[in-house]
């Protein structure tokens, strides 16, 4: 019970740090319709803590227990100072998204609470899945016990430590909780991932509330949360300690905030977006794909809008890039002592013309798998089917810049993901089976946001199609 309390305290400190950081950024209170609530604070707080924890590792490869405790102390200071003021300004109910819950019909409130209770009970158990132990858990234990990436676990290629060069954000957060618990026991650590699940649902619900009111917010948030891939406990799903769910939360948060920053260049949203994008880069290597996709989408959106405010946009871009690049630099620096796997150079085959020439049939080969995955009800609950149907079937007026930006981002990321499977030198069916659903998880919250916007703009179900046709 004491260990559970310690982990809960650690998570509360991360959240408090996020609230404090947001409270320190000027202009936070002017958010229209969606205040920077609990979900945003979790994302900002974990990102900030991870950024701080990367610093000692990047400097000399060591991270003593004192560094973890210092990060918690700083979180405490942020939480009780600007964090508390931020929560007061918003109000407890709106901060925790309770207004979204109250806006739901009573029986859906019961379903939501039961779902959260159930997920909470599952999060109390130990790590049992593969990557959560072999990749992230092992790193976390090494960082906690040895306080370094210079030991044999990271530097000896004979040590069984797969993907030793994976980004360290998740292991660092886990090692922080180990430090607070005073042991490397992994029980209760999955609460961190439940927190990311809830934050992601709240971010999506908050954006839906901003656009279409609290009832729509609650419904869309619940629809996302009830997706098996987000809340399920099997390999790679949200309730395992894989890095995919935190990654999805960070990239969705960054995309939403960047979308808002398009409408208000130079605002504080850009700074937070940069921090979350940096956290994504330090969580999974796919962060680079998202960074490029977001950059591309931004350019295309601005080109389409022919925005004349170049000075403001340049300032916003710099505001986004600064924290993201700092995070990336620290993450790369922390890995400079870790050698690449002995056979990694063989993957350079993807750059050879001979290899690329023979891949003509790959798209045909992977298409059935992709279709099966998108329509898999046990994994996605037909969520993707609903997204595609909504986008194709509902009529709507012309796209505004933010939803256009979301769509270009989603398309660019999806195209890049498919491109990876087309050129992969791994056994393609193995690669698809092990990675494709997790890559889709990164995109799914954004897809739900796109659908939400489409449904709202089309006027479905209430006001009817006439209004949409008038606008069109």
């Amino acid at each position, binding site marked *: 019970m004491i260990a559970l309390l310690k982990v809960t305290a650690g998570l509360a400190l991360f959240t408090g740090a996020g609230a404090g950081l947001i409270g320190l950024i000027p202009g936070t209170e002017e958010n229209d319709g969606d205040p920077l609530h609990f979900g945003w604070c979790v994302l900002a707080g974990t990102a900030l803590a991870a950024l701080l924890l990367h610093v000692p590792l990047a400097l000399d490869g060591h991270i003593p227990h004192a560094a973890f405790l210092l990060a918690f102390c700083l979180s405490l200071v942020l939480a009780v100072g600007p964090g508390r003021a931020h929560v007061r300004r918003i109000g407890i109910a709106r901060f925790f998204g309770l207004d979204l819950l109250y806006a739901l019909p009573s029986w859906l409130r019961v379903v939501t609470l039961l779902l959260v209770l159930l997920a909470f009970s*599952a999060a109390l158990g130990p790590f049992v899945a593969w990557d959560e132990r*072999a990749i992230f858990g092992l790193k976390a234990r090494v960082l906690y016990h040895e306080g370094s990436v210079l030991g044999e676990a990271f530097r000896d290629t004979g040590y*069984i430590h797969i993907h030793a060069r994976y980004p360290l954000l998740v292991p660092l957060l886990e090692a922080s909780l180990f430090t607070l618990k005073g042991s*490397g026991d992994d029980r209760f650590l999955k609460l961190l991932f439940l927190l990311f699940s809830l934050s992601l649902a709240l971010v999506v619900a908050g954006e839906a509330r901003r656009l279409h009111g609290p009832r729509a917010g609650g419904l869309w948030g619940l629809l996302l949360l009830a997706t098996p891939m987000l*809340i399920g406990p099997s390999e790679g799903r949200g309730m395992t300690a894989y890095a995919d769910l935190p990654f999805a939360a960070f990239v969705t948060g960054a995309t939403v905030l960047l979308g808002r920053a398009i409408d208000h260049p130079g605002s504080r949203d850009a700074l937070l977006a940069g921090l979350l994008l940096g956290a994504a880069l330090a969580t999974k290597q796919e962060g680079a794909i998202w960074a490029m996709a977001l950059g591309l989408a931004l350019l295309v959106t601005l080109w389409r809008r022919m925005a004349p405010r170049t000075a403001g946009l340049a300032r916003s871009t710099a505001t986004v890039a600064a924290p993201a690049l700092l995070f990336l630099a620290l993450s790369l620096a922390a890995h400079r002592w870790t050698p690449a796997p002995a056979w990694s150079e063989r993957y350079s*085959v993807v750059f050879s013309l001979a290899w690329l020439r023979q891949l003509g049939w790959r798209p045909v080969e992977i298409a059935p798998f992709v279709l099966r995955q998108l329509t898999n009800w046990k994994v996605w609950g037909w969520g993707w089917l609903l997204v595609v149907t909504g986008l*194709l079937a509902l009529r709507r007026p012309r796209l505004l810049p933010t939803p256009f930006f979301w769509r270009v981002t989603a398309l660019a990321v999806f195209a890049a993901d498919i491109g990876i499977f087309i050129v992969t*030198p791994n056994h393609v069916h193995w690669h698809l089976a092990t990675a494709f659903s997790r890559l889709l998880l990164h995109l799914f919250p954004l897809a739900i946001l796109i659908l939400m916007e489409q449904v709202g703009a089309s006027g479905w179900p209430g006001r009817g199609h006439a209004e949409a046709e008038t606008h069109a």
Partner: protein
Amino acid sequence: MTHWLRRQFEAEVIRRRTHRSAVVACVLFAVVVSLALLRPGIYTVGPLVIGLESLRNPLLELGAAVLVALATRRRSFHLPFGFRLEPPLRLRRLWFGWTPGGRVFAIVLTAKLLITSLNLLRLPGQYLPSLRDFGNRIDDPLEEVFARGNRYEQFERFFERCRQELPDDARVLYSGRSEGQLLAYILYPRPVFMHPTDRYVAWIGHQVLDLGRPLPDDELFPGSLPPPLGVPSLESFVAARRITHEVRFVESDLAECRIGTIR
């Protein structure tokens, strides 16, 4: 009129009693859920034997009790779950007001909501294994576990034995397949090594053999190439890392599995 009033009165009495019973059931099942969560097991209450090893049934019962309590509130007695007659009528009006695309979306959304309900009902059963590793079978002898033929259960149980038997300062050489990645986590802080050739074969095996597929007939596929050149001999690998113990896991063959010292 009197008859109608009497019927209304009887309905009101039934509603009130049902509601009261449902509220009591909510409290009772909340206690049962807490018990199943905190102290799962089999309970004997007088002649009754109550199995509380799974959260699924208590949660479903709690959910049902809450829904009945909500449905029998004074405000929404006419139809269960707070439904009234207006929504179906409004839905009918909406349906005829929608475009064909809007109707298709409505049908897919309905199907999606049904699927989501089904998935939510399956969820408690999926959570159970993550609460307790391999349920009640944790005490089964290894011979029985290997006889059952589940590879995951075999190596999880065998690795647990390794964790118990190996000394704290052991430095371990692993022979087997990709499951060695989990052994490294389970045995930590005892370091676990694998010879590069074995590890390479295990990695390729992880990709191909686990799926039951043959290697692609393509010399450019990395797995088709021979293991990396310049790997040390097993003896020098062991000596350089001061390895003291060996663990070998062979699927479905307990006799071939081994935990031993290296001289």
